[in-house]
């Protein structure tokens, strides 16, 4: 196929060619970035919590005085454990995707604002909670009975804790975190173990790197550890068990108030937490599909015009011996050239758009492999769109050459 005559013909339609190429360039830029955004959001939704989500639920009550905490805890634990199908009930202060209870900045130095590690979530938990959560220990040891300390402040004053692998790698890169110390103002902590994954309460708000900066803090009930209960049941039983538990609160502790919104299965909390991301994904996919549709229609429209306009020339070419295949390939090549031009410009635009998004939305850099994928999609789209008009062109009989338009 000779390209030269096609280029010569396109030069006669400079403006139209330029417009369609611009449209494809913009489409390429939006396509690459929108796909990238979809993938980013998808990764967010897939955030690992590190706990047995399908078997866990949380139940929160409030509206009691600190002096009543011990009594409320005792009544709630006994009452909830009596529910048929309930496998375990333990105290915890927060769960992944629920309300955040205790986030605080920590540092490697005592009493210092220097050498800071970052802001982490302190998860306070009574004996047994580690197993109920289903956390996976990868290094160090599990908490023993005498590791559990009372939390007179928002956390125990001096405690042995477990950290997530992500936090360990951030705070002590390349070293074993076991035995390492850290401080939060006057509170002192020592690492005794590392868990594989453990998401903080609001992972997406802290960014991908800090999504699992969590400290599992063995704590005795009372003080800051009251009113939030972790429930475990078999996945099939869980919705019923949670419903029964919510209804039972009025009988177990008539003076407290059930927090309806935050007494949910972890799965429901997760769905709720990532709702806006799911909406955004739907929207982005909608934009991508409509945009590709509009672009395809533009190509169809323009190609149809050109086919109609060139009917006579096509007839002449056919009369001079060009086959239907030649005509078909002519329009396909023409489209390929225009789309290629658009894609080249589009790649530059895609990176420019990505740069703009990076400065405004803390987005990572667009990986290079998005460009060839975007190019392939647009080439495919162009070829599909031009096929109809091109077939119509190929069907023009040679006899047209002898007739005036």
């Amino acid at each position, binding site marked *: 196929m000779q390209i030269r005559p096609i280029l010569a013909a396109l030069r006669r339609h400079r*403006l*139209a060619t330029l*417009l*369609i190429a*611009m*449209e494809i360039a*913009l*489409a390429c*830029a*939006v396509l690459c970035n*929108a796909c990238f*955004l979809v993938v980013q959001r998808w990764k967010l939704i897939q955030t690992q919590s590190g706990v047995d989500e399908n078997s866990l639920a949380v139940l929160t009550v*409030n*509206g009691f005085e*600190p002096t009543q905490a011990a009594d409320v805890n005792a009544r709630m634990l006994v009452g909830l454990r009596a529910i048929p199908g309930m496998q375990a009930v333990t105290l915890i202060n927060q769960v992944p995707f629920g309300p955040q209870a205790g986030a*605080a900045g920590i540092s490697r130095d005592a009493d210092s*604002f220097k050498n*800071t590690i970052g802001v982490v979530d302190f998860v306070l938990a009574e004996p047994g909670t580690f197993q109920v959560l289903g956390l996976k220990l990868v290094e160090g040891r599990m908490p023993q009975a005498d590791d559990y300390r009372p939390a007179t*402040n*928002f956390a125990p004053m001096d405690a042995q804790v477990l950290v997530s692998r992500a936090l360990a790698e951030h705070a002590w890169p390349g070293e074993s975190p076991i035995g390492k110390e850290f401080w*939060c*103002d*006057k*509170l002192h902590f020592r690492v005794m173990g590392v868990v594989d994954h453990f998401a903080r309460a609001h992972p997406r708000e802290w960014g991908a790197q800090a999504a699992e900066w969590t400290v599992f803090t063995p704590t005795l009930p009372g003080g*800051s550890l009251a009113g939030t209960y972790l429930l475990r049941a078999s996945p099939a039983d869980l919705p019923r068990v949670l419903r029964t538990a919510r209804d039972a609160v*009025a009988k177990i502790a008539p*003076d407290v*108030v059930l*927090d309806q919104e935050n007494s949910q299965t972890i799965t429901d909390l997760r769905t709720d937490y990532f*709702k*806006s991301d799911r*909406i*955004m994904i739907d*929207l*982005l996919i909608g*934009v991508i599909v*409509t*945009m590709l549709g*509009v*672009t395809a*229609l*533009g190509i*169809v*429209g*323009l190609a*149809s*015009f*050109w086919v*109609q*306009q060139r009917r006579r020339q096509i007839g002449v070419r056919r009369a001079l011996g060009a086959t239907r295949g030649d005509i078909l390939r002519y329009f396909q090549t023409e489209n390929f050239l225009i789309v290629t031009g658009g894609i080249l410009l589009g790649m530059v635009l895609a990176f420019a*758009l990505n740069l703009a*998004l990076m400065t*405004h*939305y803390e987005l990572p850099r667009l990986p290079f492999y998005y460009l060839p994928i975007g190019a392939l999609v647009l080439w495919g789209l162009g070829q599909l769109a031009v096929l109809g008009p091109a077939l119509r062109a190929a069907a023009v009989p040679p006899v047209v050459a002898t007739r005036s338009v």
Partner: protein
Amino acid sequence: MFAYYLDLALRSLKRNKVLTALMVLAIAVGIGASMTTLTVVHLLSGDPIPGKSGVLFFPQVDPENPARADHTEPYPAMDYRSATDLWNAHRADRQALVTSSPVKVRAPGTGRPPLILSMLSTTTDFFPMFEVPFQYGAGWSAQDDANRARVAVISADLNAKLFGGANSVGRSLRVRDTDVRIVGVLKPWRPTPLFYDPWSQNFSKTEDVFVPFTSSMEINEGNFQAYTCWHVPDDTHHLQNSDCVWVWLWAELDSPAKASSYARFVADYAEQQKAMGRFAIGKEHVRVRDVMTMLTARGMVPDDVRLQAWLASAFLAICLFNAVGLLLAKFLRRSGEIGVRRALGASRRAIFSQCLVEAGVIGLLGGFFGWLLTLIGLWLVRQQPVDYAHLAHVDTAMFLTTFVTAVATSLLAGLIPALRASRVVPAWQLKAL
């Protein structure tokens, strides 16, 4: 002449219905998408208290000591001492101390189970300052503030829930363990965004119970929550002497002169505290912003919404390129016809107007359908579980903007093709016939 051009345009559009439909659809979809998102952005960045937003100021100081190196802006709240010091100076025309906390509320005699509600602690000026509308009764007095009176104002929502919407002034409410007398009931009031509370979700509801600041310190002691602390308090829940920020202040200053003298006063206070060694940073971290400046600094429009607006604009651009390309091809295909008209004496201007009328008709149709799509788009936004969903509706300004944008963009899109068509050289075209 216009009627004739219109007739020609309609004939030409009818000749290829599918293509006309495609062009109209492309413009409509582009307009629909971009206007939906722009309407949402417009509504979300609206003035929550028009007429007064320029005289209400939000002073900020930075009590963090020692200050972190990466701490470049003061927190959107103050420690108790700074807030009360500034308040006690009475330098503003009106001023209000504000903080909010969760509290357990019961209505004796209604037989309803207790509720956990959000309570706003503030001072008497709050209500006139923010033009809070009352259904029954009124706010409390400065005397009540000073006397730590056990009084409360409740929201329309809570009044409906507890008392069926009846006049409940004079009835009593049990707030935690204290009985308070209801002195006022609000009309439905929902400033959007919720500007007076700097930590709230922008589009959340107002608090349900309003209690004098001094009284609430006693009633709900231990349940106040800090925005943040730079030293861990000895008792997490007793914040009055802690190194935590949790109280904020609003000042009404009627003239620019008063506003600048108030800003100086706050800066002097910060410098004085720095000299005393209580603050690490003095006037460099003093801000006295009015409502809109403060809201802009806080970032009112959610990132996702701004992202959607960007996407929709790019999408509109694609649709426009598409429309221009198609119109161009369409007009140039009629080069022969145009050549004949030119040869018969039509001026370039006449050809240009004729093409522009045709582009305008497509634009009007596209604008109309785009407007319908905007309505559908906003309806879809209202169905979403987002906190600003209730805001998504078309107001007159946006209705006009949508339509004008639609016609203007398509006229603009018609401009280049019409110009190109009017430059067709008649002689060549006649030869080709």
